[in-house]
């Protein structure tokens, strides 16, 4: 005897897991489904028996419960590149595999008898298979051979849900497995190697046994004269014809896939069903088919959708031949079966997830430093970043009154060099580039072709034909794609190196930032919006003088390998200056007091420079740059809304709070914070312009309400309006 399945093992002991129905033992029918080791809907005929396996019947008259057994070890995945995959190892499959091997091909075979089930053929082509210990992804170079054979047709007649009904092939298997069959009556093709009484005629019904109403006691057939004959029995063997298991072939149309053996058989069409259950999974009867047909559901897909026949665990294996026969009998052309979709053999989500990973979130070289300092880390802009170090107020105060450092390694950084570098940047940016002197930096918006702001950053000139560009953390990936695409499209002679990950960056900011840098060995710090090089605390750095916090700031770009040395050096040298790191939460507060926008947070999909009140960053007199035509076009239309700064007394409203002018909604808050320095809340938010009336132009509201509190729009920030601190 070969491997015993759970089903044969139980049947040998006279135990049933389900009500009944014609068992096929080929993995096609839904009559042996049970919960095995906590997984429901397992085909016990395909599950090798072993001791200590937990096998439970599904709840009688109800669906299995949704529950988890807790932890399970992840299922491993295997990828195999080969020449040929042969699915199915019956005689035809074995022969096909041998032939391919003889031709010197690297062949992988899948044998469902060994628990290797192909669940689908996907574009690639890719054959995915579930095996007993892992999930296989097979990439065949030459060919996929499908040798999945054919399934046996199920009986449709009253009583087809009794126990003791077995397909002809299954009868042979059960007899060989030592299952007691008793008196066997064979309808249709008789079982091989089993003593059975062959009977013929039209199948009328199965009758229960007197001793056990759940078991079959007789099968009734009608002869050609219309006379019914009852054949007492313990087991009915049903050889009603074959229907190819061709779902894999059908889902692989257009790929190099070939069927061999029984899978190519034309499907047998059973007689039109007259009575009884057609779809055991969804409980659809012949009467149901008649009913929906009479109501206008006349094609296969509509019958399926109306009755839900074919949508259960056997995916139509039991019912589709009969529904086709039914529809053909109503005068339709014999309909083609449903579209074949994966999965052709069921598997758990845990199995199908084998080999998958979450999208990894990168960490800066200072990640361990932040965690050691007790930082609360957050995913932001595509990176793990410190949100705070436990005391946002102290972090804020350090920047405003002393000195603080911040890990800004996530900023996009790129070098562009080459004869056409200036030409490229003139095209990409809405401000003049050629006039930028070496050693100087310029704030830039990056516009897309719709004239919308896609990102912002700096352009720094390092030489005649060499530039450093910076981008926001969230925008750097897009920026690389964007710059390379334009360089290639315009056929420009440039070299581009994305150094976002290569370089660490630490921002040293605060009224005492310069003092700290001098201690760290910088003799001549660059002036505002200038850059230079220096060795800082022993680490070679490029220094960029700018300001996002509103205080004197130096961004120190350096090799990622040196980040920890530089960070620790600054912390040590600045200890008596009260240096402490600040996280993003403090940074949000600091920049908002300055009214600086964050692209992505304060901007929207359709934020033009005009809507952002950033027209100063666009020089339309430049003859051409990306987005110029769109800005000229949209500037002709009236402005509808603008990003504005607001102030209000009392606590800061939640970001996303709505802004009202009386009872009218006029916009919402994109950024909001309490300003300790000003003693009130400051906000950025979108506001819709209001009709001016009497032919006056539309205007922005001045006094609005947010969260039920009065707020006022300010045209100029209250905190250091002249920007004196940053330039100090």
């Amino acid at each position, binding site marked *: 005897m070969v491997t015993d399945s759970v089903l044969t093992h139980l049947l040998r002991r006279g135990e049933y897991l389900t009500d009944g129905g014609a068992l096929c033992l080929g993995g096609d029918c839904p009559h042996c489904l049970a919960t095995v080791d906590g997984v429901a809907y397992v085909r016990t005929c395909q599950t090798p028996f072993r001791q200590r396996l937990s096998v439970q019947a599904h709840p009688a008259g109800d669906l299995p419960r949704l529950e988890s057994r807790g932890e399970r070890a992840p299922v491993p995945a295997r*990828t195999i590149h080969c020449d040929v995959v042969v699915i199915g190892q019956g005689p035809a499959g074995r022969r096909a595999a041998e032939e391919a091997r003889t031709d010197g091909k690297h062949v992988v075979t899948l044998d469902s008898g060994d628990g290797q089930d192909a669940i689908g053929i996907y574009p690639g082509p890719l054959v995915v298979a579930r095996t007993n210990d892992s999930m296989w992804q097979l990439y065949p170079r030459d060919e996929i051979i499908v040798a999945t054979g054919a399934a046996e047709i199920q009986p449709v007649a009253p009583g087809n849900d009794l126990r003791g009904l077995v397909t002809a092939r299954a009868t042979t298997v059960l007899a060989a497995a030592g299952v007691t069959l008793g008196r066997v009556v064979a309808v249709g093709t008789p079982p091989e190697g089993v003593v059975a009484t062959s009977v013929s005629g039209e199948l009328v019904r199965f009758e229960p046994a007197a001793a056990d109403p759940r078991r079959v006691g007789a099968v009734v057939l009608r002869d050609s004269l219309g006379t019914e004959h009852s054949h007492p029995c313990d087991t009915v063997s049903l050889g009603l014809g074959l229907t190819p298991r061709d779902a894999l072939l059908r889902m692989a149309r257009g790929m190099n896939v070939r069927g061999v053996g029984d899978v190519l058989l034309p499907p047998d069409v059973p007689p039109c069903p007259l009575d009884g259950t057609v779809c055991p999974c969804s409980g659809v009867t012949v009467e149901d088919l008649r009913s929906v047909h009479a109501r206008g559901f006349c094609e296969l897909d509509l019958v399926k959708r109306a009755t839900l026949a074919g949508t259960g665990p056997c995916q139509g294996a039991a019912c589709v031949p009969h529904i086709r026969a039914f529809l053909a009998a109503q005068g339709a052309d014999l309909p083609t079966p449903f579209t074949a979709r994966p999965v052709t053999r069921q598997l758990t989500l845990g199995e199908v997830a084998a080999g998958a990973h979450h999208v990894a979130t990168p960490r800066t070289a200072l990640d361990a430093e932040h965690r050691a300092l007790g930082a609360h880390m957050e995913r932001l802009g595509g990176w793990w970043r410190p949100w705070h170090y436990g005391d946002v107020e102290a972090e804020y105060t350090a920047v405003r009154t002393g000195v603080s450092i911040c890990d800004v390694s996530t900023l996009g950084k790129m070098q562009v060099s080459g004869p056409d570098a200036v030409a490229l940047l003139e095209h990409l940016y809405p401000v003049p580039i050629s006039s930028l002197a070496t050693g100087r930096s310029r704030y830039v918006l990056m516009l897309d072709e719709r004239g919308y702001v896609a990102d912002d950053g700096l352009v720094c000139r390092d030489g005649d034909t060499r530039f450093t560009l910076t981008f926001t953390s969230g925008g750097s990936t897009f920026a690389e794609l964007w710059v390379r695409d334009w360089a290639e499209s315009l056929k420009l002679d440039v070299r581009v190196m994305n150094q976002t990950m290569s370089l660490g960056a630490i921002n040293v900011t605060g009224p005492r930032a310069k003092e700290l840098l001098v201690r760290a060995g910088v003799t001549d710090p660059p002036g505002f919006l200038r850059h230079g090089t220096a060795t800082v605390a022993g680490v070679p750095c490029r220094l960029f003088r700018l300001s996002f916090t509103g205080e004197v700031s130096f961004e120190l770009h350096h090799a*990622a390998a040196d980040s920890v040395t530089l960070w620790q050096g600054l912390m040590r040298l600045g200890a008596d200056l009260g240096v402490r790191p600040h996280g993003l939460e403090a940074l949000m507060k600091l920049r908002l007091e300055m009214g600086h926008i964050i692209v992505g947070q304060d901007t929207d999909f359709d934020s033009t420079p005009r809507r952002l009140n950033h027209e100063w960053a666009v020089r339309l007199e430049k003859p051409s740059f990306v987005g110029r035509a769109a800005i000229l076009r949209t500037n002709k239309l009236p402005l509808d809304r603008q990003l504005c700064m607001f102030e209000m007394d009392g606590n800061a409203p939640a970001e996303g709070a709505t802004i009202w002018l009386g009872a009218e909604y006029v916009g919402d808050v994109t950024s909001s914070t309490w300003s300790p320095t000003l003693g009130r809340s400051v906000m950025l938010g979108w506001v819709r312009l209001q009709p001016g009336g009497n032919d006056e132009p539309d205007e922005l509201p001045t006094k609005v309400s947010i969260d039920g509190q009065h707020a006022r729009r300010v045209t100029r920030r209250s905190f250091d309006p002249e920007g004196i601190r940053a330039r100090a």
Partner: protein
Amino acid sequence: MHAPERLHCTRIVATPTALDTAAWPGGAVVLRVAADEALVAAPVELDVVSDPHAIVEPETAFCGVWVEVEEALAFLERECDWELPTERPAFAQGAVAGLPVKLWFAADGDDRVLFVVPAPFVVDFVERWS
């Protein structure tokens, strides 16, 4: 697998011809990551390539670890869905364990594979290896 260590490399972006004809330091592993870009696992002089506009920069954002070929292939069978090169030595790059990984298969006789992983993903790489 040992923990990958930070590599001190040189990264060069230059015309493909300049990279094709460059005289690299003897014995250095040279990964040709793109037609116009090379990653050299050694310090390199600025004038190693003939392109006057080349960008030549020290590169410390990659970590590397040498792994015996058998262990490497077992890992790659689980975590890599593209076909590995069969010639030696060979360079290959693509998604491995969901991360952008570069592989250097050493010359015949040295049955080892160098895994090169961007440092920002090393924590994930080590987690996914185990």
